[in-house]
């Protein structure tokens, strides 16, 4: 029972275990440098152990699926699948992974962080396992991209090296981009099939191939495959990834990372193959890659470079096999996957040993290592021979199959003759570079100027290589007893059907493939012998064709384009930003209106015009135009603005909005005072603009805005409407207890607006206060005419008479406040009047004098205002009504008579206090600014300071 339960969740455990292991590995390095390696090895073995119980089921022909719901909205399940193909890859990943771990434990030097290395490696392993074990395609893409990320970390492991950083980034960009394409492909696939689960997708091959999205799907998936598996034209990242520590290369470029793409080809083989598009795209890419890789490998001086291009070439080979599209070709492909993984892993390890022992990887310096490290040399030679396709080694077998497929599978094509020939050419180079690897490293005289004297590596560093080479031999000699079973299930898993007949014998008699092998071997040796001339030819031209140049050019181009677009749009210019907003608004209004067929104007009866109104509006318009026209003379422009404000108040009066008129009047003056306070510190004139184009552009936008707004206003005003306002008019008295409907709306019907509004005002005051802390500005000591300021700080007559006005204005404020509920007025206006009353005192008596007499900290006034306003609302909540519910009643007191008590008045009091507090705070803080700024600059000392003396006496 327990085993059964376990068996139904072991696949996610296998895939996720390495990730948890990674945490332990990183942590373990703190205890002991080598502990990470042991953790990593243990985790890998544990994963194998978790996988082991399922192996028998797969061999029995079952496909294991374990799934949980995750995001049902998009059919994303947390789902794992184990079939033959997945099993093959899982075993490759884990077994070769284990060997690499053992190898790396000896490879890494003291200064390398073990914890980081093994953590990254385990995460990478987990990602790979995730890809091959995923049942859900989106989940597979997740792991797919994780391999890109973790390989980035692994390749850039020696982060201080420029080539490591560049190589890692290139790998990330190319494979990451492919991953995104794959994602798109998978999404389309899921869209077509209606499910992201492999089981469903694999069963829908017919549907997919017949769908008009087939080609996009194919291309997108292949982009994923080709980038990951370093197929032309994306192959160039792989050699640059060789900056990674060699164990990483051994792992990534033999059995894992690059095989992920191949895995995907195999996975989708039953779904996507069998069409001309498939053949051309997959076969074409494979063939070109095969050739380019094989050719280029020969000319590498870096051992790992040679192996990298060889890898590219072999991946091309496998791709080409899949491209043939036949079942037998797929068998060959899978077989070669296994073989390549073994010999290439061992070769990379050998390269690592050499690097480790000699301190270099340059084959021009490394020579004659046979006598320094004979054991290693023998291993290397066997593995290289396998790579070259020498009989009795695994590489020979799959290569034979490959030749056979090359001959048969392309029969149908017009280019039938071309494929076998090109394949032989590639094989020739393959032999040549393998030969070069052996000859140039282990023979070819004495080493040149090596940093270290080489000798055999530690015992355990060779054991992984030993094992891999033994596999090469075992498979090569007795395939039926070694590789056959796993190959069979893998093929079955790939084809999702009974595999075709194929033979794994080493001897098929004298046939064309054998001949081809022979020709390749002979010509290969020949090419190697003639290498000098070939090298010269290569160095003179082809060597400089590096796709990296294109890659860098593309990135550089992207950089340049991005910068120029960003800088030309986001110029850091306010004018630019404002123009965009306003122009967009204009366009939006226009598009909105024209998107519906409706007349611009309605047919509501309009109001007749009278002379006074015409005159007033004319003054308004002229004043506003003059505000603009005279804007460079700032003070005069400000005076014009004053006229505009005045006329607007008059308009409000005329059109039955006394409350608005009162507010407008007060706000207008406070604004003017504010602007005057500010203008003191600003230039008195605006310089003339130099850019006529901008001016005319702005004029156009301004005029269009004006016209647009006029039309919009008319469009509405010529229509009838049925507003909700009747409710307010009817309920103001019975429901709100006030006859001034505007005020009742403000403090009752829409009291929350008002609460927000006083919050804004409070914030403005506090924000201004905060902004002005510590601010110092240059205070001019003379005006624009060059005159010193008048020495009379507070003209006597103004002082005396405005003091007289204070109680009067406060009285008016209270009057306006109290009547607000029933007649024009209210907290706002009263607050503004009271604030103006205080401001006048500041104006005529100065800040110090007034502050001495006004003991309130305006913070308190604002705070209490908000408190009172909110508390009024909260009281209602206490009584079981919603926030802001008001109540009123009529009291009848002796003498005083009948009067109304409304909670809205309390609310209005809060409003009043906030308005006073915020307004006074803003202005006075601003006023103080000048006093602080005055201290340094010259005061008009040339004139008598009687006034100030008198001032002091008065205090």
């Amino acid at each position: 029972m327990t085993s059964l339960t376990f068996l139904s969740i072991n696949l996610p455990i296998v895939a996720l275990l390495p990730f948890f292991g990674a945490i332990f590995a990183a942590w373990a390095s703190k205890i002991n440098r080598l502990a990470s390696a042991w953790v990593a090895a243990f985790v890998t073995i544990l994963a194998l152990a978790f996988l082991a119980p399922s192996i028998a089921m797969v061999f029995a022909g079952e496909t294991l699926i374990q799934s949980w719901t995750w995001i049902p909205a998009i059919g994303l399940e947390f789902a794992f699948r184990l079939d033959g193909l997945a099993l093959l890859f899982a075993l490759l990943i884990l077994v070769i992974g284990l060997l690499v771990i053992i190898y790396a434990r000896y490879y890494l030097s003291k200064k390398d962080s073990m914890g980081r290395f093994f953590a990254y490696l385990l995460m990478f392993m987990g990602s790979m396992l995730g890809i091959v074990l995923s049942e859900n395609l989106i989940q597979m893409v997740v792991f797919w991209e994780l391999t890109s990320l973790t390989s980035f970390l692994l390749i850039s492991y020696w982060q201080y090296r420029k080539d490591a950083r560049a190589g890692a980034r290139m790998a990330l960009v190319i494979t990451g981009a492919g991953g995104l394409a794959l994602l798109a492909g998978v999404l389309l696939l899921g869209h077509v099939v209606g499910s992201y689960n492999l089981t469903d997708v694999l069963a829908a091959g017919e549907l997919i191939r017949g769908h008009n999205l087939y080609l996009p799907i194919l291309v997108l998936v292949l982009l994923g495959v080709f980038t990951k598996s370093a197929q032309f034209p994306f192959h160039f990242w792989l050699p640059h990834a060789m900056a990674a520590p060699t164990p990483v290369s051994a792992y990534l470029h033999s059995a894992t990372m690059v095989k992920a793409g191949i895995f995907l080809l195999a996975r989708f083989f039953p779904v996507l193959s069998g069409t001309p598009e498939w053949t051309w795209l997959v076969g074409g890419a494979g063939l070109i890659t095969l050739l380019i890789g094989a050719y280029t490998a020969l000319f590498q001086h870096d051992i790992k470079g040679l192996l990298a291009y060889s890898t590219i070439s072999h991946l091309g080979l496998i791709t080409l096999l899949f491209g043939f599209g036949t079942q037998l070709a797929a068998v060959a492909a899978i077989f070669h996957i296994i073989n390549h993984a073994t010999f290439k892993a061992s070769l990379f390890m050998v390269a690592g040993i050499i690097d480790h022992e000699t301190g270099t990887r340059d084959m021009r310096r490394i020579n004659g290592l046979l006598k320094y490290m004979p054991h290693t040399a023998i291993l290397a030679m066997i593995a290289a021979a396998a790579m070259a396709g020498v009989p009795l080694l695994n590489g020979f077998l799959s290569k034979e199959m490959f030749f056979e497929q090359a001959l048969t599978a392309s029969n149908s094509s017009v280019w039938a003759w071309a494929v076998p020939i090109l394949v032989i050419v590639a094989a020739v180079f393959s032999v040549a570079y393998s030969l070069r690897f052996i000859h140039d490293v282990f023979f070819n005289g004495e080493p040149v100027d090596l940093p270290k004297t080489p000798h055999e590596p530690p015992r355990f560093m060779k054991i992984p290589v030993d094992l891999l080479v033994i596999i090469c031999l075992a498979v090569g000699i007795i395939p039926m007893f070694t590789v056959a079973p796993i190959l069979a299930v893998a093929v079955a898993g790939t084809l999702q059907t009974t595999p075709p007949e194929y033979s794994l014998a080493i001897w098929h008699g004298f046939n064309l493939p054998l001949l081809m092998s022979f020709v390749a071997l002979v010509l290969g040796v020949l090419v190697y012998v003639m290498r000098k001339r070939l090298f010269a030819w290569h160095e003179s031209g082809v060597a400089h064709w590096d796709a990296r140049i294109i890659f860098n050019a593309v990135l550089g181009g992207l950089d340049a384009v991005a910068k120029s677009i960003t800088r030309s749009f986001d110029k850091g210019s306010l004018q630019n930003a404002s123009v965009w907003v306003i122009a967009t608004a204009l366009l939006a209004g226009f598009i909105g209106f024209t998107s519906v067929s409706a007349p611009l104007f309605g047919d509501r009866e309009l109001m007749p015009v009278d002379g006074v109104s015409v005159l007033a509006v004319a003054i308004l318009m002229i004043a506003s135009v003059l505000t603009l026209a005279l804007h460079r003379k700032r003070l005069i422009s400000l005076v014009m603005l004053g006229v505009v404000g005045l006329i607007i108040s008059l308009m409000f009066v005329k059109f039955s909005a006394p409350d608005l008129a009162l507010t407008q009047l007060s706000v207008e003056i406070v604004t003017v005072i504010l602007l005057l306070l500010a203008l003191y510190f600003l230039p008195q004139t605006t310089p003339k603009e130099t850019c006529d184009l901008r001016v005319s552009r702005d004029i156009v936008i301004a005029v269009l805005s004006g016209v647009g707004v006029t039309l919009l206003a008319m469009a509405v005003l010529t229509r009838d409407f049925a507003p909700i306002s009747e409710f307010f008019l009817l309920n103001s008295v019975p429901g709100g207890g006030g006859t001034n409907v505007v005020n009742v709306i403000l403090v009752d019907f829409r009291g929350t607006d008002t609460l927000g509004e006083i919050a804004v005002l409070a914030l403005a005051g506090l924000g201004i206060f905060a902004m002005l802390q510590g601010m110092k500005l240059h205070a001019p000591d003379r005006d624009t005419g060059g005159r010193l300021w008048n020495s009379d700080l507070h003209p006597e007559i103004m002082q005396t008479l405005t003091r007289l006005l204070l109680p009067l204005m406060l009285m008016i404020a209270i009057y306006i406040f109290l009547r607000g509920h029933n007649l024009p007025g209210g907290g706002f206006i009263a607050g503004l009047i009271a604030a103006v009353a205080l401001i006048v005192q500041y104006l005529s008596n100065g800040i110090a004098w007034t502050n001495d007499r006004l003991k309130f900290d305006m913070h308190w006034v604002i705070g209490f205002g908000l408190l009172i306003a909110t508390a009024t609302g909260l009281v209602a909540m206490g009584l079981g009504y919603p926030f802001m519910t008001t109540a009123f009643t009529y009291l009848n007191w002796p003498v005083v008579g009948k009067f109304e008590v409304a909670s809205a008045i309390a609310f209005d009091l809060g409003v009043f206090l906030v308005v006073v507090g915020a307004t006074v705070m803003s202005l006075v803080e601003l006023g103080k600014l000048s006093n602080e700024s005055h201290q340094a600059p010259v005061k008009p000392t040339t004139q008598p300071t009687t006034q100030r003396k008198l001032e002091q006496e008065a205090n």
Partner: protein
Amino acid sequence: MFEWILSALIVIGAFFTLVGSIGLYKLPDFFMRLHGPTKATTLGVGALLIASALYFSFKTDDISLHEVLITVFLFITAPVSAHLMAKAAIHIKLKQVDRTQNKMK
């Protein structure tokens, strides 16, 4: 009779208001212009306010004297405004017509 008084006050008030503005408009220098608004206009508005007070006192049940407030207010403030404007004008040495006696420089 009441209507007559009212009408007269309205016309007189409006007239003096206008006179103030005419002064403002046509007089040749700032200091001379200053006289129009401070006096004529104040009186004009005063007359109109009295008209208003009368009207609302007699047309409605209540008496209406609050217009007096505006008048008083103007009588206090208009000279202060004028004083300050004149002070400013002297400070920035505005030109005066040549025939001005004791010209300020």
